[in-house]
């Protein structure tokens, strides 16, 4: 970190919060002014962005590329499904809790084994772990519904003593926005804490971090678990929005998209993954109108070009300011 003169850093911190407030206000107003299709679209961007942000904790801050985030996301979905199918009446908060528990259990498992490995070996092992869970979910038809997945009713929004109402698209958007904003601020706080600094020093120079005396494996394990929990939260939200859980969301495709979101938007910024998710989904929407499912051909080319020529991603130029 280069030294920044105090006089210049103060206004840019204010600038950060001003930018944050403007984006937040725009997102609050969005469902009131947008047509139904785009309203749902913005909600989906928030959920996918949350998933991508969870992966950024590993890719951007700890320097570990995970190709297995679909496992956490999918177990979050199935966890929410378990709560909504077994509890009468269905409870929103229990669905989120079960989603977190499901993803957390997987994260403990993956963290224990995969964090002993580095670089490409970590990437390959996360990929393999997510495929293990995919095969289990896909073939264990009695419990998971196999290929067809599970469908369930949407829980009402309940805050004890205050609200008890069915979700409308607007209120669901605001609910997701509240959850995502809380998660973002929390993760931002964590990455700026001493713990987050250790993660970043692992990214920059792992042997030296170890030599200084930090227990690197323990830090990595906590990072993977944190990342898995946030990804599970995204999965639970997605399940509640769509009222189903399906094995497709545990498959590698989702993990691949998460990596694409991060690389496109800019790793190590937390906001970048949201921008990446937004630009990917917008491009997909625009391109698939006349290319149908072949939209991935131009998108894959754009992605490869970004990897080669713009490794910092779209928001990479803001990286230092976003981490202030």
């Amino acid at each position, binding site marked *: 970190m280069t030294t920044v003169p105090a006089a210049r850093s103060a206004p840019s911190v204010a600038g950060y919060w001003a930018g944050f407030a403007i984006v937040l206000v725009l997102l609050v107003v969005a469902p009131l002014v947008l047509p139904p299709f785009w309203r749902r679209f913005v909600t989906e961007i928030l959920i996918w962005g949350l998933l991508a942000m969870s992966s950024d904790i590993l890719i951007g801050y700890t320097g570990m590329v995970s190709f297995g985030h679909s496992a956490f996301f999918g177990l979050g979905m199935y966890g929410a499904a378990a709560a909504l199918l077994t509890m009468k009446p269905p409870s929103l908060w229990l669905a989120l809790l079960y989603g977190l528990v499901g993803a957390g259990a997987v994260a403990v498992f993956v963290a224990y084994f995969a964090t002993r490995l580095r*670089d*490409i070996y970590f990437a*390959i092992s996360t990929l393999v772990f997510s495929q293990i869970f995919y095969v289990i979910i896909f073939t264990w038809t009695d419990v998971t519904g196999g290929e067809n997945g599970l469908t369930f009713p949407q829980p009402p929004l309940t805050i004890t003593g205050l609200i008890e109402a069915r979700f409308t698209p607007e209120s669901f958007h605001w609910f997701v926005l509240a959850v995502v904003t809380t998660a973002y601020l929390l993760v931002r706080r964590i990455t700026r804490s001493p713990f987050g600094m250790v993660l970043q020093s692992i990214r920059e120079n792992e042997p030296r971090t170890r030599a200084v005396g930090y227990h690197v494996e323990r830090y990595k394990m906590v990072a993977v678990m944190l990342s898995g929990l946030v990804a599970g939260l995204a999965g639970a939200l997605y399940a509640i929005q769509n009222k189903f859980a399906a094995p497709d969301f545990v498959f590698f495709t989702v993990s691949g998209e998460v*990596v694409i979101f991060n690389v496109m938007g800019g790793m190590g910024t937390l906001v970048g993954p949201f921008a990446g998710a937004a630009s990917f989904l917008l491009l997909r929407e625009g391109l698939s109108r006349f290319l149908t499912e072949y939209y991935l051909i131009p998108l*894959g080319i754009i992605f490869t070009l970004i990897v*080669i020529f713009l490794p910092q991603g779209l928001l990479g130029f803001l990286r230092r300011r976003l981490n202030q």
Partner: protein
Amino acid sequence: MIPWDQIVIQTLNGLVNGMVLAIVASGLTLIFGIMDIVNFAHGDLLMLGAFVGAAALGATGSFWIALLAAAIAIALLGVFLQVTALRPLIGRDPLTTILATFGISLVLQKYALWQWGPSVRRISEPVPGHFTLFHLQYPWYRVATALMAGAIIGGLWLFLKYGKYGIWIRATTQDRVMAQAMGIPVPLVHTAVFAIGSAMAAASGVLFGPFTGVTQTMGFDFTLRAFIVVVVGGMGNLGGSILAAIFVSLLEAYAAIVVSPAQAVIVAFVVLVLTMLFRPTGLFVPTPK
């Protein structure tokens, strides 16, 4: 009671699948060993090779011409990909190469879907006939495939061991800078190795085609299994990869006796995890000092 007939059949199946996988994995490990590229698109090169082979078979009627045509076409594609996308990445973090080749794999897979559609393509067996194995009619073609795969791998080994260019490749793998200093055109060697790896992937795609047919989703499965084999055998270690391919395929085949084939895949995953935990340098290499 031990089902001996099934064990014999599955041993044969495992050996045949293992030999096909060994060609794929040796291409992957060669590419990793020489330029630190983890090629996520390797399975998709195999899949494209199988499609090109199916198309060439339809046009010419000869399996052997199709095999050659697929290998040459995919080798050229490999040259193009290496020069445009991977050469700029040499010297960067190997993780960057996973990302770039992942992008390439998306493009190749959707291109195949666009060009050839979602339906399964059949490649007819060039070696007809069956022999009786317990209650089964086992096709001779499978045995022939294992032999051809062995011939391809043997040819590669002889080339690397005795060929002038094979020695260039080994020298570059050992020490890039020194090889350059000795006058070996290192960038050219990199491109050639990528082309060889691609051609081997394409050849195994055509060889494997008659087993289950050719679909545009077959690539990911091969990429994943080749990754597992290459890590289990030790990254960049050719002999280890070949042994690991046969070892993992045999285990999968035996597991398929007890559970469904879809679940038998998990055995390969477990082998990988155990290997990475207890012998991260690979199962079939001497313990590093």
